[in-house]
C-alpha cells in the first residue's frame, strides 16, 4: 500500500464521515463546522490529484467564504433547534424514504460506473498542475464561458442585493 493510497483512504474516511455527520446531526452549528472540515479535506484530495491551485481555491471559497456566509445566515435566522440538540426535529417525516431513495441512487451509480473501463493514462505521469498553463487555456479556449460565468456572478450579486434588501 503506497503512501498515496493510504492518504486517499484516510481522506475519504474523514470526508464521508464528515458528510454523514452534516446530514445526521441535530445541531446546525456543528454541521457547519463539520462542513468546514469536510471542505478542507476535499481540498487535500485535490492536492493528492496534483491540483494545487484548485486546492487553494477550494479552501478559499468553500472552507472560507461559503462557510462564513452560512454562519451569517444562521445568525440572522432563528433556528428552532437549540444548541444542545434538543428541540424541534431538524429532519422531516420522509427520512426513511429519503434513505431508500439515496441508497437506490448509489446502487444505480455503482452498478453503472464501476464496470466501466476508462482510458486512463496509466503510463503518463500526472503533470504537476501549472497555474500559468491553466490561465492560458482559460483565456484562449474558454474565454466565452469565462465571460458568461462572470455575468452570472454579477447577476447573482445584484440578485442577492435585491432579494435580501429590506422593503422600504
Amino acid at each position, binding site marked *: 500500500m503506497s503512501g498515496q*493510497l493510504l492518504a486517499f483512504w484516510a481522506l475519504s474516511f474523514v470526508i*464521508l464521515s464528515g458528510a454523514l455527520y452534516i*446530514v445526521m446531526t441535530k445541531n446546525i452549528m456543528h454541521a457547519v463546522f463539520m462542513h468546514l472540515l469536510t471542505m478542507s479535506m476535499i481540498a487535500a484530495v485535490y492536492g493528492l490529484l496534483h491540483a494545487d491551485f484548485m486546492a487553494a481555491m477550494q479552501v478559499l*471559497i468553500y472552507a472560507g467564504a*461559503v462557510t462564513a456566509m452560512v454562519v451569517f445566515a444562521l445568525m440572522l*435566522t432563528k433556528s428552532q433547534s437549540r444548541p444542545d440538540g434538543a428541540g424541534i426535529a431538524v429532519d422531516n417525516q420522509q427520512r426513511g424514504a429519503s434513505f431508500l431513495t439515496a441508497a437506490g441512487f448509489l446502487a444505480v451509480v455503482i452498478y453503472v460506473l464501476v464496470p466501466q473501463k476508462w482510458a486512463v*493514462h496509466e503510463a503518463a505521469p*500526472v503533470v504537476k498542475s501549472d497555474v500559468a498553463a491553466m490561465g492560458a487555456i482559460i483565456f484562449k479556449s474558454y474565454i466565452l464561458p469565462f465571460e458568461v460565468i462572470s455575468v452570472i456572478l454579477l447577476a447573482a450579486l445584484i440578485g442577492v442585493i435585491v432579494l435580501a434588501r429590506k422593503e422600504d
Partner: protein
Amino acid sequence: MVPLQYYIIMSAILFTIGIYGVLARRNAILVLLSVEIMFNAVNINFMAFSAYITPATMVGQIYTIFAVASGAAEIGIGLAIILLIYRGRETVNVDEVNMLKW
C-alpha cells in the same frame, strides 16, 4: 497510484449523502449545505478525470472552476431567499413553506 475507480466511488457516495441530506433535512440552511456536498462530489469527479484522463488540457479542472463559480452564485442566492422567507414567515423549515400548492 490510486485507481480512478476509487475516486468515482468515493464521489458517488458523497453525492448520495448529499441527496439524502437534501431530501431529509428540514432546515433550509442544512438543505443548502447538503447541496454543497453534492456540488463537491461532482467537483471531485471532475478533478479526478482531469488528472487521470486529460492531464495536459486540464478540461476537468476548468470545468471545476466554472462549477465552483456557479456554486458560489447558487449559495448566495439560496441564502438570500432563505433570509427573505425567514423575514416573511418566521421560519426556515422547508416543509412549512408550502404555499405553492394546487
